[in-house]
């Protein structure tokens, strides 16, 4: 009898935990990944609302590991409105990760953010969509 009660309690708790985890999971993640011809690009955006936000960019070479990235430019555009924000040149930190500082999002809605990766010989563009509240 006691054992059955324990099992029932356990199932009850597990269901609560699963339901809660499901609800939390609905919140989504602010990390996105895109692949270009030569690179795998991962961005993490802190853009939660209207204003200036940093965007952190991880770039991994897919084809030729010896390629040197000359410049990384972040260009946000609000397509619905026909509006662009100033492009920002991202700076690399010690770990090789790039940070585009104070990227300007002037309104809520879906922004298209281009990450342009320039090398001496070619330019790749990764496109992301960021929802600004």
């Amino acid at each position: 009898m006691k054992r059955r009660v324990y099992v029932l309690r356990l199932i009850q708790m597990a269901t609560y935990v699963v339901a809660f985890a499901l609800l939390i999971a609905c919140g989504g993640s602010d990390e996105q990944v895109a692949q270009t011809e030569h690179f795998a690009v991962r961005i993490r955006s802190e853009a939660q609302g209207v204003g200036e936000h940093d965007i952190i960019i991880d770039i991994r070479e897919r084809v030729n590991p010896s390629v040197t990235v000359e410049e990384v430019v972040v260009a946000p555009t609000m397509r619905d409105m026909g509006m662009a924000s100033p492009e920002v040149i991202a700076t690399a930190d010690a770990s090789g990760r790039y940070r585009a500082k104070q990227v300007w999002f002037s309104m809520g809605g879906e922004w298209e953010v281009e990450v342009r990766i320039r090398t001496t010989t070619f330019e790749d563009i990764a496109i992301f969509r960021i929802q600004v509240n």
Partner: protein
Amino acid sequence: MTRERSEWNGIMRKLIFRISMVAMVGLAIAPALFFPHAVHAHGGAIEGPQQVYTQAIGPYEITTIVELPPSTPALLLVDIVPRDDIGEATILLRVTPRGYSFDQAPSTQITTVPGPQGVYSTQLPVDQSGEWELELQIEGARGSGIARIPITITPTPLPPYTIPLLITLGSIFLLLLIGVGVSASIQRRERPLLQAVSRILSYAIFGCTVVAGVLGVLQWNTTAQEAQTATNSDAGGGRPHVNVAMTPSVAILQAGKPLSLTLDLTDGGTGLPVDDLVSHHEALMHLIVLDTTGTSLSHLHPARLAPGRFITEFTPDRSGNYTAYIEIERRNSGTQVIARDFSVAGSSAAPAPPAPGFGMRTIAGIQVQATSSLMPLRAARQTTLTFLFSEKEQPIRDLQPWLGMGGHLLARSADGATFAHVHAAETMVPISATSDIRYGPTVRFVYTFPQPGTYQVWSQFKRGGRILTVPLTVEVVP
């Protein structure tokens, strides 16, 4: 005594556990319940309960803010915001279902007072959903005018899971209350029946909590899907082009003589009047009139008179050739610009010298420094044009939002092939007429000039109810 206390503590722990679990699920589903409609922030067509229409009604530029009721019968709330001092004028408002006469329509009247203008609020009864027209008739010292604004009252249905969700949450609350009573009874007298009831209640609360959680997730998903569908349909771009017939009120247009321009919009596919325009940037229509020398610029918002018919007053300030750019947005179809050329007769005055390039200039007593992030400007390269405002060597920080933006920039290539309407890359406001936000001392515009050549540029800002226009001539190199 110790046993009783221990039992009591056990009951309380159980109760706190139940309440905290229910609160946790409640918190998780609250957004789905209380914020069912995802807001698609779109500075263009604002498809919300508040609709904004800026129109030149006769000689007066008036912004009308209409708050659509979610159901009928109800009161239609209307705010009237004159752009500048219109003196003492009477504004008669009437509302009627589309196609009905205004004779028997409910009406209300506003009398404006001279001086700085605020918001005049009024309300009109509406008794059914569907298509309506709101009429504004203005009489004042400067003249009179009329506009008829189309509005659609759509009852807002409750999201499908709202009622079951509310019933479930109500049940949880009720069961918790009963549970408290039963627990207290158990503490007083130990009865097997009460214990059984307590257990059943426990299972019922558990069941209701799970159901509420599932319903919350379903509601969240449904609203997210609806928002996605709305976004997709917004970008649909499925309606035909618009033809515009522009008719001046006089046969021969003379410089310095006021006239009215009537614009008849017809559907490129059916030939029928176009009456599905949505307010974008706070107006149904933006009419930009430029002369070919770039000396004369008018940014007008014609008033709608009837389906497909708009009218505005206009005074050409010099003779020569003009182009009227008509910027409109059909529902679910994006913005389109239609150009119409016309000529103005009169003694041909020598063309004014072209506007200066980047640098400092004084306009209406205000110093404006225009700069570019890219010098020289290059075709197909993005640039940020920045305007820095000061007055008596003090930075200006009280620029007002105009048509939802911190400023508007119009640009035209010398050959007329490119026409641009750029919005300030500053914080956008949902409804500028009632906003307290102020801009300055700098306002930026981000634009990529598509072709090399000479461009005439006009940036427009609002301060103290007046529009400040800053002309500029720029060279774009390949």
